[in-house]
């Protein structure tokens, strides 16, 4: 194989394009958003279902869904994104079910958090780590 170094450097350009590192929450931002949403009320674990993949197939468009029976609002945050705010879903009294699905962009491996305002006025929380990876090497 007769190849020059210069020629072949260009060939590999597309080989690995994505840089990912685990991202840690900007705790202050997330806490502040939760406080604003709950008005400072306590948040219990559970009461809301959060469905998200363990490993994102594509960090640019990660399907997630949330549901909480009778909830009037669900706040969704991506704790490691530069802007953790993802969405706040509001459900009126005539809503058939308090559930919603969307796709979100994740800048790297991080926790996705859902807080629901439940029918009795209390708040419930669910959290799941979604991994964003370079990929390859699968057995």
């Amino acid at each position, binding site marked *: 194989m007769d190849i020059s170094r210069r020629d072949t450097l260009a060939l*590999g350009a597309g080989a690995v394009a994505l840089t990912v590192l685990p991202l840690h929450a900007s705790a202050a931002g997330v806490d502040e958003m939760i406080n604003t949403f709950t008005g400072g009320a306590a948040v219990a674990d559970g009461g809301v279902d959060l469905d998200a993949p*363990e490993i994102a197939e594509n960090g640019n468009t990660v399907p997630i869904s949330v549901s909480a029976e009778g909830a009037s609002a669900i706040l969704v945050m991506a704790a490691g994104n530069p802007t953790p705010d993802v969405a706040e879903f509001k459900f009126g009294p005539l809503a058939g079910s308090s559930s919603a699905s969307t796709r979100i962009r994740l800048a790297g491996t991080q926790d996705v958090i859902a807080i629901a305002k439940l029918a009795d006025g209390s708040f419930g929380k669910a959290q799941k780590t979604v991994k964003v990876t370079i990929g390859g090497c*699968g*057995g």
Partner: protein
Amino acid sequence: MISRRDFLQVSMAASAMVGASGFGNWSRLAAQQALTQDQLLDFDTFGNVTLIHVTDIHAQLKPIYFREPEINLGVGDNKGKVPHITGADFRKLYGVEDGSPSAYAMTYNDFTALGKEYGKVGGLDRVATVVNSIRADRPDALLLDGGDTWHGSYTCYQTEGQDMVNVMNGLKPDAMTFHWEFTLGQDRVNEIVENLPFAALGQNIFDAEWDEPAELFKAYEMFERGGVKIAVVGQAFPYMPIANPRWMFPDYSFGIRDENMQAAVDEARAEGAELVVCLSHNGFDVDKKMATRVKGIDVILSGHTHDALPEPVLVGETIIIASGSNGKFVSRVDLDVRDGRMMGFRTKLIPIFSDVIEPDKEMAALIDEQRAPYKAELEEVIGTTDDLLYRRGNFNGTWDDLICDALISERDADIAMSPGVRWGPSLLPGDPITREDIWNVCSMSYGEAYRSEMTGEFIHVILEDVADNLFNPDPYYQQGGDMVRIGGMGYRIDINKPQGERISDMTLLKTGEKIDPAKNYVVAGWASVNEGTEGPQIWDVIESHIKKQGTVKLDPNNSVEVVQD
């Protein structure tokens, strides 16, 4: 009254005592040099249902050598548990005698010597003999293929999987699930699956755009065998678009999808299923975790991580069967299903010793027919090896060392990267290396060998990323391959640290200098998942390198220091 749980455990204990899993006899037979087909197939038919499991054949139509891993580390709850037990510890655990046929089949030690004594393993014509023999005992046995079937050889690449489809159709499976098949590209997969004469299953194969179950793949198929209603639920490899190139099958999405699995099991039970079997390509540790989260699965036939276990692993009331890879083993699982529940089991992991098991004539002819158009190309001898060439293990195997050497020298690189796949047969010292042998360890639809500049920091990020896919303590965050193989660079890995802290002491071997995070290094590799990767095909790179060597001799590779405690 004996509870079901008690019964399962009694049955398991009874199996161990009477050797129903096939153990205890072979070593004696070896001493007598009298291993026969009848003894390999000997099985006291049990209950009223038989399952036959093959998985991860990787297009190996012909007998091969396959060395099991020396290093296969478990983390978190799976530390020190099967399948993360190898070598002497494995033999001690299962009462396997050193040097016996089962030691050769299931452990790595003395592989060269035992390989010469016991010969090659596998070959789908031999597998056919075993399947036919089980069907003679139990004509309505279910044959289930765990996937990674239409990938992994020269002829499979040239025919886009048609050789394997033709041969497997000859074996007449009842259902199949998938992984590498999708790297044929979604159009080709769709074309084959539309005409498949058996069920193509995957409860977790979804339409990517609508996030709904894909129309072409059913979640489960109902069978009635031995008067028992059986549901076989498929579980494709969950992380295909991550571990393999997403752009090759953009319309499909996967994932583990526990809740959907539970829904499928519940639906099948409501439809009258008395036995629920999961045909899985999750990998063993993922299957173990899934068995704790999804209720109502009786048997998981586990694939993907290529583990060969002589006895089932019991999780709650679910038994998990692991049947190896590359056509080396067939699992027979006999079940007693009464009053709508599984009351007992008897299993055997049957090693396909190709010199002992008579090839099925029809299947042998069918295999030769697939290979005939490519005979000259397959058989061309490219070189010879002085060393044992193998791949399996968490870190570098000698095949990978050879591939990395080829990348560094043919592509003029500082550092080489080779994917930590678990397929690829072995060659014994003195064996010729044919073109077929080379393709067996690298054939794929995205084999372009890239050449790229990467900073030291980025190389570290890649190693950390892959290490977490292997050593994350939660199996649901693992992808099931082994560690990326590295040439030209040494490193230290502490497998129990979190991502970002496992890899240290990266050293450029040719100078002995520490890798500088800010400096650029020329890296050659192959099997990039990114679209548009350019470069020569890896098999051409390897062939060119071996031709220049003539006889392959490798230096011992001690470049990876592993910290595991």
